[in-house]
């Protein structure tokens, strides 16, 4: 059952060194309040799973500004020089994954699949250390499931039960990550009464949400 909590309480539950998935694409659709609070509470040594490193001062970029990340699974970090510096200085252990494989691995983790077979990456550096599996003579890479202890999700509307909808390109990885973590913590642009979101417009059903951050 979803609980409504303050941002301080929610982040206090995340231990240093935790694995944390964060929704968003270049900082769009990212739960900024949770990131600000992670910085305030100085949660160090995080294993971050996020599409990108955003930019300094924005989205998960704040975690790199505060050097809280020790492992990163992402698809690109090209627009955050701080993340690049920390990677080149070996302060961050980084695993770069093609974006389609990244989201399928998280989806697999959330949907109880062991992994998926993808053509992406066959014959490239990405195939190193991965199993190659043929189906009908075609080669595929086995990309295995990813899960995290926490998923930090940003929604557009959340109702009192925890049903979520997302807006425009801020949806991105949020609903997929909301299925793939032991504990799902959500911020929303608007909190609305039950029934305001039509059943056909709910993207993340309420039972997936553990904590909703209250306003103010």
């Amino acid at each position, binding site marked *: 059952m979803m609980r409504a909590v303050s941002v301080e309480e929610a982040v206090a539950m995340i231990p240093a060194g935790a694995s944390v998935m964060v929704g968003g*694409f*270049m*900082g*769009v*659709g990212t739960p900024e309040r949770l990131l600000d609070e992670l910085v305030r509470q100085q949660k160090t040594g995080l294993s971050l799973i996020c*599409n*990108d490193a*955003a*930019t300094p001062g924005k989205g998960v970029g704040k975690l790199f500004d505060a050097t809280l990340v020790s492992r990163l699974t*992402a*698809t*690109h*970090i*090209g*627009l955050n020089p701080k993340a*690049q510096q920390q*990677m080149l200085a070996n302060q961050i252990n980084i695993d*770069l994954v*093609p*974006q*389609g*494989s990244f*989201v*399928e691995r998280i*989806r697999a983790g959330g949907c109880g699949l062991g992994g998926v077979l*993808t*053509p*992406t*990456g*066959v*014959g*490239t*550096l*990405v195939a190193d250390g991965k199993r190659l599996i043929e189906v009908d003579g075609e080669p595929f890479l086995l990309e295995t499931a990813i899960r995290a202890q926490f998923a930090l999700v940003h929604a*557009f509307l959340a109702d009192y039960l925890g049903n979520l909808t*997302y*807006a*425009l*390109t*801020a*949806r*991105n*990885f*949020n*609903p*997929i990550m909301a299925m793939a973590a032991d504990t799902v913590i959500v911020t929303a642009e608007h909190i609305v009464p039950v029934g305001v979101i039509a059943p056909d417009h709910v*993207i993340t059903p309420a039972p997936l949400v553990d904590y909703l951050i209250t306003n103010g």
Partner: protein
Amino acid sequence: MDPQIIIARRVAQELKSGNLVNLGIGIPTLVANYVPADLKVFFQSENGLIGTGPIPEQGMAHPLLTDAGGRPISALPGAATFDSAMSFGLIRGGHVDVTVLGGLQVDAHGRLANWMIPGKMVPGMGGAMDLVSGAKRVIVAMQHAAKGKPKIVKKCNLPLTSARPVHLVVTDMAVIGFADGKATLLETAPGISVAEVMAVTEAELVVPDDIPEMKI
């Protein structure tokens, strides 16, 4: 004419009505500017949108509607938004008719390298590997040579983006196809001779008898 505009104009001619098209960052983005108004093309932004429109007027941007670089965009009537699993389902599943990507190198068989310069530029592959592996037609839009150094090479010394060859390379000097697994000169840019193209192309080029000039 500006070399980038030559490329963008020529690539735009490859798009057909009804096509779902994904444009990479850089020169590929310019292609949208040269699509005839009567051609109904759907542009996908891989962060979760089909139907991207022009940059919104001053004061009309919404922070939750951006392109894959995080810059404000608009959405045309009939646009659709979706999560990243769907976005890459569309890409890897062959639903994207044409993708246009920038390139660092293309080899004699059409294999592209465009995501990494070891020890120098390691931003990550983002969606590029999925696009090259999955789109129905892959077009590389790039300068023919970088400071006189050929980019169409015998063998890429940079890491490949995919083992799957691209279909077409459009440069400021030429159009090159890979129909039989061999780099074949199809067109030259206005005022550029076949010899001039050959001089800055490292890969062996099949040169048919009749090489038309780009109509741009």
